[in-house]
């Protein structure tokens, strides 16, 4: 009976969405907004090779700011709900092979994350991806050395400082009269080189640091309530 009701609701959902689905014939071109973003003068103005990065950091920079704020709020609420309990577990020792491999791999993975968000305007990648890669390095650290004490202050201060610098760079563009989150506050440089897209690599690096610190913070919260009370 109940499943019948659910099926009825799903059928209603499908009937609402079906015209949308059947009228979709594959998009034949870009929308007007995207054509504006991909026009020649705008590409020369922003000077970023990766158009997705250009959209995320400059054109839709306010979205990114809101997204980072949501992530911060999520981390704060999770910290409020999961109070730290004393860890009294007796853990099985990790084998020596795993520890050595982790010691070798953690710096490499962190370096890969930093590479991804510094080169965000040239290759696929950017702040969010690099932050996620850094958080996975932190996960490996948690798994390999479970008894190590992590300084909570470090993640929090890293996150606050990078958020502050991010908002500061954004406001700096407004002060110079260019616009909030404009990338022209630094010289543009030659197209396709590392120091080319103005402030985009700098802003995206701080976004990456902030996202990485926040995700690591959330994961650390989930790890610290694994106590055996």
């Amino acid at each position: 009976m109940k499943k019948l009701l659910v099926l009825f609701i799903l059928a209603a959902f499908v009937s609402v969405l079906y015209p949308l689905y059947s009228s979709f014939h594959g998009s034949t071109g870009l929308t007007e907004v995207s054509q504006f973003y991909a026009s020649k003068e705008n590409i020369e103005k922003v000077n970023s090779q990766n158009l997705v990065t250009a959209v995320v950091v400059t054109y839709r920079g306010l979205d990114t700011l809101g997204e980072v704020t949501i992530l911060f709020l999520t981390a704060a609420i999770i910290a409020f709900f999961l109070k730290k309990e004393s860890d009294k577990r007796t853990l099985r020792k990790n084998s020596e092979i795993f520890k050595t491999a982790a010691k070798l791999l953690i710096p490499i993975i962190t370096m890969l994350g930093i590479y991804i968000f510094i080169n965000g305007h040239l290759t696929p990648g950017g702040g969010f991806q690099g932050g996620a890669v850094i958080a996975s390095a932190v996960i490996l650290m948690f798994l390999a050395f479970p008894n190590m004490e992590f300084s909570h202050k470090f993640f929090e201060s890293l996150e606050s400082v990078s958020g502050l610098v991010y908002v500061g760079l954004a406001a700096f563009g407004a002060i110079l009269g260019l616009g909030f989150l404009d990338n022209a506050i630094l010289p543009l440089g030659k197209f396709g080189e590392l120091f080319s897209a103005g402030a985009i690599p700098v802003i995206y690096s701080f976004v990456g640091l902030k996202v990485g610190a926040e995700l690591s913070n959330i994961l650390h919260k989930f790890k610290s309530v694994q106590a055996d009370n």
Partner: protein
Amino acid sequence: MEFKIITTLLGILMLAMSFIAIYHKKMIVAVIATGAVGLFASIMYLFLAAPDVAMTEAAIGSGLSTIIFFYVLNRIRQNDKEGRESDEIDEIPNK
């Protein structure tokens, strides 16, 4: 044409994985199947010419969210059990 076949196979696999995620009895298998849905989705994004999205999905959808699910499952299992029996090999000192 090959892309179409591969994409169709990926779609069928994703639907099967989501079915497993909804209906399998063991929660661990369900969580792993959710991670697999994310992994196949990232391959699909690569076919749809979206490498940025593919990277994000591969790192987050199949890596970090699975780990968070496992932390929560572990904690809930401990709450249910209230102390676990020590087995013989655990207590042997390593040195």
